[in-house]
């Protein structure tokens, strides 16, 4: 062999060796970061749980496709899902399993406050950070816990926002409701919301004339609607999950029940895209919905990650992003941001990084907040929802005024059925 040929062969061998070593080391460094996600994938809240799951998956894929966690040599995010079955004790058991068996660095979830509350206690005890997704129970971030962080708003915010919106519209248009009816689902979420509304309504001078808890799985809201009709309130505040909300809204239309200042839903069913597919559109016109995210953000945002996430959601579910998908996306981006700053998948390091979070731009703000920063209790104080009104089938943000699009105008008071 000539000298140059031999040199070239050696070069090739050395190159091959170097490449293998490089691949080997990058494969070694790219050990995935495991993230647990406890969600209601079955049971009463399954629809929400599945939407959140899709959001989490889309965000993880976006991050992984863009090269993973760069400060960890491109480590991929691996999500381990666990089904809480919408039940607290199952959620607790699954949390323990995922922490002990799957060795995750961080957890997120679990939508149902009744599940998140005890499950986060387990996480705190096992010193594993948890990013709360969707649960609004105030006490979750009122326990002096160090490992629990919540991106979304607390229950008290929700009630306050609904009344704030009414006050704002009263100022804007000169008239507003004086008496309110409350119809809510009889478990955790509905009851705590009703309790919060009562407190704020008393402060602001509204009178509650109907206070009715609905048992789950109702087959007929006729009796409650009649009770509301008899009490003649100016507006009704509704806290119902999808199946009950569907029935209630449909029957309200059938019975032509008129309320001068309309229906104010704190979300639940009316935030679920499946809701709108199952009703004639007119049934939901003019309804106000307290949304956990800015519903029309897709119109104002130019962030490519958010827009492509919407596309991916449509491909996966047949409908676009909802509050729940957005919350899933946000949680993953917050975790990824913390991982980048922690430069480690160690739970303690991650916890410290999460506590230092201060996000002011990017896909983590898909929910419409201006900022994500956790206080000493782990609560993101910049979290807020919006109040939208359904105009011709489109939900447009009306409150806060800063989030209202230029061409959105509230309809207040709400027209009677015969005038529509």
């Amino acid at each position, binding site marked *: 062999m000539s000298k140059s040929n031999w040199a070239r062969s050696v070069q090739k061998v050395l190159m091959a060796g170097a490449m293998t070593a490089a691949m080997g080391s990058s494969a070694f460094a790219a050990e995935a970061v495991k993230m647990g996600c406890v969600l209601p994938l*079955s*049971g*009463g809240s*399954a*629809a929400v749980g*599945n939407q959140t799951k899709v959001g989490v998956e889309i965000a993880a894929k976006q991050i992984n496709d863009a090269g993973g966690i760069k400060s960890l040599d491109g480590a991929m995010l691996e999500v381990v899902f666990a089904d809480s079955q919408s039940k607290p004790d199952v959620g607790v058991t699954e949390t323990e399993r995922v922490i002990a068996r799957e060795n995750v660095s961080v957890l997120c979830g679990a939508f149902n406050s009744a599940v998140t509350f005890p499950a986060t206690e387990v996480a705190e005890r096992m010193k594993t950070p948890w990013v709360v997704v969707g649960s609004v129970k105030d006490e979750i971030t009122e326990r002096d816990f160090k490992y629990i962080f919540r991106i979304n708003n607390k229950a008290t915010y929700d009630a306050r926002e609904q009344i704030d919106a009414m006050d704002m519209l009263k100022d804007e248009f000169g008239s507003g409701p004086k008496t309110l009816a409350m119809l809510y689902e*009889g478990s955790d979420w509905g009851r705590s919301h009703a309790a919060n509304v009562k407190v704020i309504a008393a402060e602001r001078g509204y009178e509650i004339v109907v206070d*009715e*808890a*609905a*048992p789950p*799985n*109702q*087959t*007929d809201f*006729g*009796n*409650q609607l*009649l*009770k509301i*009709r*008899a009490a003649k309130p100016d507006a009704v505040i509704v806290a119902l999950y*999808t*199946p*009950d909300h*569907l*029935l209630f809204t*449909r*029957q309200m239309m*059938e*019975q*032509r029940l008129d309320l001068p200042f309309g229906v104010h839903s704190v979300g639940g069913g009316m935030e679920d895209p*499946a809701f709108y597919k*199952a*009703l*004639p559109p007119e049934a939901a016109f003019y309804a106000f919905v307290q949304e956990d995210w800015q519903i029309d953000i897709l119109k104002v945002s130019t962030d490519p990650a958010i827009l492509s996430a919407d596309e991916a959601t449509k491909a996966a579910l047949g409908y676009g992003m909802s509050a729940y998908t957005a919350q899933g996306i946000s949680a993953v981006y917050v975790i990824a941001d913390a991982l980048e700053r922690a430069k480690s998948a160690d739970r303690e390091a991650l916890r410290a990084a999460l506590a230092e979070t201060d996000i002011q731009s990017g896909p983590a703000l898909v929910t419409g907040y201006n900022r994500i920063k956790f206080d000493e209790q782990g609560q993101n104080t910049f979290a807020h929802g919006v109040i939208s009104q359904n105009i011709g089938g489109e939900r447009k943000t009306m409150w806060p005024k800063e989030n209202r699009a230029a061409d959105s105008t509230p309809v207040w008071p709400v027209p009677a059925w015969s005038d529509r």
Partner: protein
Amino acid sequence: MDAFILSYAVVNGLLQGAIYGGVALGLSLIFGVLRVVNFAHGSFLMLSLYISFWCWSLFGMDPYLSALINIPAMFALGYMVQSVIIAPLIKRESAMVVEPLSALLLTAGVFLVMDNAALMAFGPDVRALQAGYYVPTIVVGGIPISGQRLIAALAAFAVAGGISYWLRHSDMGRAIRATAQNRDAAAMSGINVSSVYAMTFGLGCSVLGLFGALIAPFLPISPAIGLAFGIKSFIVVVLGGLGSISGAIVGGIVIGVFEAVASQFVTATSASIGSLVLFILILIFRPQGIMGRA
């Protein structure tokens, strides 16, 4: 409370109660003939609701038309469940008398399987179908009456009447009544008792098939809805008299009106506790119900 609200409540109660009665018909019939308390009654209704839903969702079929598929399908299912699952239990008992607890446990097993297989297959999401056209709301005396519910309520009366007539005047009907009265005598008269049992079960389920089609247009459908209707049906049937067709309708109306009027004064949940208390009192003091024979 003013008269308008009261009469509105009564009308609501009549409609809802008649629907409960129609749904409970099959349960009463099956008990009357087979002496089996079908714990899976609600599950059959749930399945028929899904059949109507899928007919609409996959084939765009109008829910009322889907009754044409639902009724025979549920009949076949009921016939099969009886022949395959319950009949072996009956055969095991030498006197062809079903030991009541075994039958209850067996149908409880059927309930567990059906409800949860549906959960596995269809998922827990709530489905709702929308009729393509709008059945108008009729306003009577200022009270709006939902057209769809009215149709279902009227159907309950029609079906009850029709089945009673058929039981009295047709050969099969007479065979069924004979078996209900005294199965040994019926067997000795040459009636094929196991065939009668299967027919009855099939008939009971086909009624559920009809009502599934009738209530699907206004009810959100999920696997959990079976149990809710199942428990209501037990209350209705015990109140009206196990084994009595007219009793099912009467029982349904009593419960419907009671709950409608009571929930104007107390919460709906307290009203449902009231129904349960009523149920217990009837079971203890007059177990044959309003229309049943002692």
